């Protein structure tokens, strides 16, 4: 039998701006590390195999590079230790430091795009990345960008409408 030390790996991880030193089994997912070891509960455990997007977070693998703004991925599929030294942003990084909602979050509320809420953090994370890269997406582009996020309550009409509203708000706010 191997010792417990053999089974674990220790690495640094920045989550929502806070630096952490993590010791975890070598195969543990980023989602488990976030929720169970660091108490970061924004990303949700849904399917745990990359289908539902409830665990979506934004990871910058080269946070020191100015052009690495990170990309959204399923944290359940990423072995946490492969993100050693990286910067992870969860839903807690979206919006203001004192809990102000972002334009995307405001739009989800205004359009009634939230019901039970388990999918919401993932949807907002994916929609925010979309609008950061394309401020004026078509309906088809919104649907394509949210293809990896499942909602079992609302249907998708209100969610797509919320992203359209957020896009419009953002365009009007930036002349």
């Amino acid at each position: 039998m191997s010792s417990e030390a053999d089974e674990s790996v220790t690495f640094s991880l920045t989550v929502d701006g806070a630096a952490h030193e993590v010791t975890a089994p070598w195969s543990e997912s980023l989602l488990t590390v976030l929720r169970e070891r660091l108490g970061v509960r924004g990303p949700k455990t849904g399917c745990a195999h990359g289908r539902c997007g409830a665990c979506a977070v934004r990871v910058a693998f080269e946070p020191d590079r100015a052009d690495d703004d990170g990309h959204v991925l399923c944290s359940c599929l990423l072995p946490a230790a492969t993100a050693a030294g990286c910067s992870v942003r969860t839903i807690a990084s979206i919006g203001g430091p004192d809990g102000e909602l972002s334009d995307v979050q405001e739009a989800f509320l205004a359009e009634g795009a939230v019901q039970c809420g388990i999918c919401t953090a993932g949807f907002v994370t994916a929609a925010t990345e979309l609008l950061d890269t394309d401020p004026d997406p078509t309906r088809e582009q919104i649907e394509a960008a949210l293809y990896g996020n499942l909602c079992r309550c609302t249907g998708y009409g209100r969610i797509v409408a919320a992203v359209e509203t957020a896009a419009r708000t953002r365009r009007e706010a930036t002349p």
Partner: protein
Amino acid sequence: MLLAAPRFALPETVGEALSALAERPDAVVVAGGTEVMPDLLWRVRTAAGFVSLRRVGALRGTSRDGDELVVGAGTPVAALVDAEAGALAAAARSLGTPLVRTEATIGGNVVSALPYRNMLPALLALDARLELTSDTGRRTVAFDGFTTAPGVTRLGEGELLTAVRLPTRPCFSDYVKIGRRNAQYVATVSAAVVSRNGAVRLAFGNAGPVPLRSDAVDVVATALLDGRAGPDDLRAAVADAVDPPEDTVASAAYRRHALGVLATRLVVRAQVDAGLGS
């Protein structure tokens, strides 16, 4: 090396990755993690450790080498959705979800070697070559024949798939798959076509234990392209050539039929592209 533990290594170069693997011969080489992590969760696979290729920069990205496109094995599938080769782009676009495609890699798709994997028929139709690197050097082999059984390849011990090479000679190419629903589905069967200078090359996924193509099929497909044969001829040739699995998703007979339909559909698209059809 960014991180090294008895059962985990996070190398930054191919050389470091090869050393890490030599020191941990029982470890699983993991690229995106999109296959390995669910496998471990569902206990359909055991692993004695990970050698992660996630941070090996040299394996990521595409470049041109003469008349070949060189795709680093660690290139995420998301980077291929707008590839010039239509088959490559279509196969990439239909893999998983956007969130999965940012992590899933072309190399992982090839080495996992399951018959329903998206990229495989596209790579076979495009006549891809694979660059394999080990401590003793580098060799290039045809993708055709690389897979020997479901999940089994000719990758040697201590060897890494480092790049996929694709001819860039102009062609029409496309990929199509069908499954049990319209979103996030695994291919029940799939097919890819390359049409170049009037000759058609077809390849099929889940049509047998390994990615499959056949000279006999291509002769009939080429005849269909220029009107010397009909769709029934191609469907019959495909039915003869394939050896599809029978499982809970579909019967072998259904797959045999569907593969003929996909083959015909792809040749018609090639005809339209060539201005031969309508």
